[in-house]
């Protein structure tokens, strides 16, 4: 609880300019920006999976030197291990940390229950729907009891309805467990709906061009007009940001489709 719990100063990667921002403990932050602007790169650095060329990342008061240590990540395509069952997937991180069998099982079942997957613990990933897979992936991250949860477009491979349902569930889970969340998405409504803060990144060499603080009380409703206004605002801003004509078209199409 010592104020700034995470700071980032980016490297000189071609597509990511030096970038700094801070996330308060327990805060839900979204990163939004055009494709290829470096959102995944940024998240990877926070996770400790990528090393910044310059600058540094600090999490929970310590500099990030590798993965793990209270941070967990959820990927766009779930990235479940196909040879393990749902339970096996959820237990994996605990096994990696040498948690004893009994405790492992118990914690995994608890996490699975949290995402409403207790009826399919023995299924393999290919026997699940896309939404179930993504929920398993979230359970796999939550079971680590992370203080920081990193999510890289976790819902973008899903259809609109499943997406809405999972957004709702994520809000519920977040309200229950209150981890710090850094959430990457293309979906402005999603970002506005879930977050305390939304950072807008620029295209090309990524950097933060605008920050929105969202004070709407939770639990929120996706149809809330305040959210729609906010989305409109962000959309305008994004349009202005995407300078290249071709990119703007693609971007607009993408956003309209949401």
């Amino acid at each position, binding site marked *: 609880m010592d104020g700034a719990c995470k700071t980032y100063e980016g490297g000189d990667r071609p597509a990511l300019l030096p970038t700094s921002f801070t996330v308060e403990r327990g805060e839900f932050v979204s990163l939004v920006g055009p494709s290829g602007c470096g959102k995944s790169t940024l998240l*990877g650095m926070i*996770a*400790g*999976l990528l090393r910044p060329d310059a600058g540094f990342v600090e999490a929970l008061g310590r500099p990030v030197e590798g*993965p*793990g240590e209270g*941070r*967990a*990540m959820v*990927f*766009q*395509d779930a*990235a*479940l*291990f*196909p*040879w*393990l069952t749902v339970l096996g997937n959820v237990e*994996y*991180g605990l*096994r*990696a*940390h040498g948690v004893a069998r009994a405790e492992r099982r118990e914690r995994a079942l608890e996490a699975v229950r949290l995402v409403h997957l207790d009826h399919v613990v023995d299924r*393999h*990933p*290919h*026997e699940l729907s896309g939404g179930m897979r993504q929920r398993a992936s979230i359970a*796999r991250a939550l079971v*680590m009891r992370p203080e920081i949860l990193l999510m890289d477009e976790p819902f973008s491979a899903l259809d609109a309805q499943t997406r809405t349902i999972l957004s709702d569930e994520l809000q519920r889970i977040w309200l229950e467990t209150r981890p710090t969340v850094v959430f990457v998405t293309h979906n402005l409504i999603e970002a506005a709906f879930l977050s305390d803060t939304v950072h807008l990144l620029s295209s090309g060499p990524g950097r933060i061009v605008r920050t929105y603080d969202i004070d709407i009380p939770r639990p929120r409703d996706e149809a809330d007009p305040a959210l729609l206004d906010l989305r409109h605002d962000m959309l305008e801003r994004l349009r202005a940001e995407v300078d290249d004509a071709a990119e703007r078209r693609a971007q607009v199409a993408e956003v309209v489709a949401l």
Partner: protein
Amino acid sequence: MSTAAGGAGAAGGRAVRASRGARAAAIGFLRRSWFVLLILLVWWLVTAAGWVDPYKLPSPGDVLGTLGTLLTERALLVDLGATLLRLVEGWAIGVVAGVLLGILTGGSRVLEDGIRPVIAGLQAVPTIAFLPLAILWFGFNGTAVLAITAFGTFKPMALATYGAMHQISPTLLMAGRALGARGLFLQRTLVFPAIVPSLVTGLKMGWSFAWRALMAAEIVVTGAAGLGGVLELGREIGAIDVVMAVILVILVVGIATEQLVFARLERWVNRRWGLVGAR
């Protein structure tokens, strides 16, 4: 696409279906075996008509007769057993060694870049060329043959492992690392299972190379029991029926292995890994 059968009346439908099933099975059998039957027929005709010297091509009956004699009098099953044992042993050693080397060195670019070209180079050399070395190092006995078989399997397995490791989804690796897996735990619980589907294909390849190395070696090192020795015996005494009987045995073993072991293994792995749709 069974809607075509939907038109049949409900009464007698079962009988119709059963006879249809039998017919379909018969057609399926013919479809897969007409060429074999054709070969057998031509073979039989050619030998029965006396168009070829039986010294050069014995009749199918002669070969079967010889096979019977070999099975009863020479205890061909002992030779077969010895060969299969050597094959499985050498292959297993080669597989384990190749996969281990691949996994342990495939994670590091420096190790892989140094070792992989050497193995690729060695794979360009027929394993049998190393037999003289093996005989000098391990003696003129089964150990040399085993070593050659294992070595013949080792090279393609190591190369298959390297290849498979390059195809692991980077996201999967990231997911594992993000969950705190590292070092040997990562290799054992993530890298290895991730490459299993590719390895199954590699296993068959390795088996094929193992057979080749083993047969070539057994033909030279004929001391102990083994199909290679019988093959060489057939050649030495000019008994082509013996040679063909042995080929027949290897053929049957090969097809049985493929159907009963590898095809099943592949199906099981593909199901378990959720690759059914992908193939």
